[in-house]
Each structure stands twice: as C-alpha cells, then as structure tokens.
C-alpha cells in the first residue's frame, strides 16, 4: 500500500504526496479552483519540486484514466483472454427493446443464445445475479457472459433485432 500524506495548503488547496519506491517524492495538489497539479521531487533536493504539471479538470480525468482509472476494464479483458472461448460484454437495453419493462425470464436468454446475464447495471449501480423475475428497464446495461457468438446473439436479442 502507498502511504499517502495529506497536507492542507491554506488559500491554495490540499497536497497529497508519497515517497515513491524509486526514490522520488510524488504528489498531487488539488487546487481549490478545480485545477490539479502533479509534481515529482528533485533527486538532489527532496523537498523541492523538480517538475510540476498543472492540469485542467478534464485533462486530470484523462490522465487518471491513462494511469489506471480503467483498472476494471483491463481486468475484464484479461479474463476473456485467460479463458479461451469465453466472452463477456456490456449490452445496452434501448427504449425500442421488446423486453424493456418485462421480467428477465421473458428473454429466455440461456435457452436461445447459450449466454447468461450475470448482472444488470442501473443508474451506475450493479445488480449482480438478477433472477428471472427481475424487471428489465430501458436504459439498463446488461452484463452477458457466454461464447463469443452467444454474446453477439444476446445483444441482438435484447435490442430487438432478432
């Protein structure tokens, strides 16, 4: 675990920093106006910044994403590689879907496609292992696991193309 230090900077914001494993101090200052500043310490002067980069709100988000904000996605894609022949996908339930407003069981997903619905994402929350009586709503995102072909068929089924 990284030992993160939090220091208030009155009138500026908050500084978070830690002593990195490779001999430098690394930190982020969250300015009160929303800007983020990344800095690393100098090797010859551990108290001073060698370099600092000021980022806007959006840029900070992008960098966070690059640095590992997407760990979950990466984890999942690794999983599909690890288990040959198994695919996993997020499928949107559009308003035009014949199953919007119907219980999950109505889709007869497993019988028709061989793929299973393992979770439903609704309003940013995951509902794991929903039962057949679980009502599907337009705007839901469904997590489907199965063979690659089965997952594609499942997506078609849910969108009403089938």
């Amino acid at each position, binding site marked *: 675990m990284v030992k993160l230090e939090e*220091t*208030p*900077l*009155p*009138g*500026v914001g908050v*500084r978070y*920093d830690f002593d990195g494993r490779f001999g430098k*101090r690394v*930190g982020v*200052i969250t300015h*009160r*106006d929303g800007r983020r*500043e990344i*800095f690393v*310490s100098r090797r010859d*002067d*551990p*108290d*001073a*910044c060698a*370099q*600092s980069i000021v980022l806007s709100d959006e840029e900070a988000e992008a960098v966070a994403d690059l640095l590992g904000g997407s760990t979950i996605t990466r984890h999942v894609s690794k999983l599909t590689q690890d288990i040959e022949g198994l695919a996993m996908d997020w499928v949107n339930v559009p308003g035009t879907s014949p199953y919007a407003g119907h219980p999950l069981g109505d889709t007869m997903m497993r019988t028709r496609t061989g793929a299973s619905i393992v979770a439903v994402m609704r309003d940013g929350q995951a509902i794991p292992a929903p039962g057949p009586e679980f009502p599907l709503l337009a705007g839901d995102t469904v997590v489907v696991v199965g063979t690659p072909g089965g997952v594609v068929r499942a997506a078609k089924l849910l969108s009403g193309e089938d």
Partner: protein
Amino acid sequence: MPLAQLFLELGAVVLALAFVGRAAGRLGITPIPLYLLAGIGLGAFMHLGDAPEEFIHIGAEIGAVLLLFALGLEYTSQELRDNLQANRQVGVLDLGLNFTPGLLAGFLLGFPPLAAVLLGGVTYLSSSGIASKILGDLGRLGNRETPVILAVCVLEDVAMAAYLPVVAALLIGGTLAAIGVNLLVALAAFAVAFFLALRYGYVLSGLVNAQSNEALLLSVFGLVLVVAGAADLLKVSAAIGAFLVGIALSGEVADRARHLIEPLRDLFAAVFFVFFGLQLNLGSVPGVLLPALLLTVITSATKFFTGWWGAAQAGVQTRGRYRAGTTLIPRGEFSILIAGLGLGLAPTLGPLAAVYVLLTAILGPVLARFDAQLAPLFDRRLREMRAG
C-alpha cells in the same frame, strides 16, 4: 472639458501601470514595487487635475477594502482555526522577531509611540501576495516547505485582523478615557463580527448567493462597501469590516466571488499603490534611505530565520529552509496599508515604509532564486559550527 481631462489623465495613469505590470512579468518580479515607483514618478513629474486626483484617492480606499476582502475570502474559517492550533510556535516567533525591530527603530527615529507601533506592523507583515506569487510562478507549491510559508502568512493575517482595529481606535486619540472607550468598542465590534462570521457565515453565504454572476458580483461588492462603511462609522477600520465579510463567505459563493472580484481588486489595488507613491514627498526619500537599508538588512535576517526555523520544525533540509526564509522576506501590500494609516503621525513613516517595501520586495525574490547556489554555503557554515 473636465470629463475629457479626467478620462485622459486616468487612462494615461492606468496604461502606464499596464506597461509597468508587463515589464514586471518579464522580469519575473511582482509589480507592487513598480506601482509604487510609478506613483512616486507621477507625483514628482506630472500634475494631475483635481478630479483625477480625487478619483485616485477614492479608488485607493476601495483598493484597500478589496485587498482585505479578498484576503478574507482566501481562508475558510476552518483553515484559520486549524492553523492557529498547528502553527502557534512559529507564529509567536514570527511576531516577536519581526515586530520588535520595527518598533525599536520607530523609537530610535524619534517617532511618537503609536507611529512606532505602526512601523512594527510594517516590518512584521510579510506580503502574502508576493509569497504566493513566488510559490506559484516558480512551481513550488508542492515543495515540502510551502505549507510552513503559507501558515506564517495566514497567522500574520489573523494577527493583522486584531491589530488593525486596535490601531484604528488609538489613532482617533483624545483623552485616555476616550481612547479606552474607542478601543473597547472597536474590539467588541470586532469580536462580535468575528464570532458571527465563524458561526453563522453560511447564512450570509446563502443570502448573497445568486444565480447570475452579475447579481452575485453586485451583492458582494455592495455588501463589502456597506459593511466597510458601517465599520468606519464604528471607528473600526473599514478594511477590517471587509476582511470579516470575506471570512464569513464560504463554500461555493466564496469560490465564485473570488473569481468575480479578482479583476476589480487588481485594478483598485494598483490604484492604491499609485496613490501611496503619489503622496510621497520625493525630497524626504534621501533622509530615510539609511534607516530603510538598515531595517531591511535586520528584518530580512529575522524573517529569514523565522522561515528557516519553521521549515526545520517540519523536517525540511537546508535548501528548503533557505527557500522558506527568503520567500517570507518581501513586505508588500499590508505594510503599505499600515503605513498609510499613520501618515499624519510621523512625516517620515510613509517614505520609510515605501523605500523599505521596495527594498524587501526586490531582495526576497532575488535571493529566493539562488537557493541552489547559496544554500550550500549555509550547509558548510552549519557543519563548521558543529565541528568547531
């Protein structure tokens, strides 16, 4: 054509300031000393008409009020409380080391006691404006010594909030009893306002909060002026009233108000410095040069030690301690503000403060740049002292 004259002269002054500000940006220093110089030059070589002069005078008053309002906005009451608790020691050291030289110098120069107290304030207050500019411009916000520098600035600002009303009450003068009453009223008004600001600031924030930026700007600016005026009626300094409004505003309102008020503050603060320079009598400068130089040397050393010691307490190494010390050396806006209060008390106080601010504001940032070259010298000295 009085209007034409007013606009032409004011415009010329503001354009001159713009030019000076850009030059300061090029040189990487703050424009405050240059604004002062511009004011001095204006007073010496040009004669402004009555109307522009009047405007600059009023603008300067607004500038002082806005400077303190913006200062109050900078800090949330929580930050002030935490800082008071965490950094008492360095705050007390700072006050003792840097107020005393000014006070003593005032007595040595034969100032009346109150003017000496004002000179103490002039040497005590580091310029938080210059310090934060150095920190931001040189990319030093992430440095380990930076919280110490900021903490010292915050504590000075708090001390100033108590110091100003007291001085303002003393300035009105009168019999001993009258001074006592004035002092009591000032302190009571200040304490009540401070308490209300800390306790019920959110109510005010809610009242002022408006959807449109325009409405918010007008409510904030109007409120600041009204409170400053009321504070002035109560013989508490107008600027202090504005400071308290700044502290009382919090959260989202404070963030938005800070953005909105910034250009206004910059404009009027520049006018404030020009006005101070304008009032200076150039002939009195040679007479104060030597005391100003001496005071600069002594109080730069004491300020340096304050920063050095504070940074050392925070576990910072030599170079960081050096930087903390040098960053605190410049005195600026508030030293000028304090000196401005006592212009009538001692004729040399104004010129002395102006020259002193000029010297420290140049010396500090210059020294701060050479930490890589100069800090090792301190290191060697320290080692020699330990060995010897």
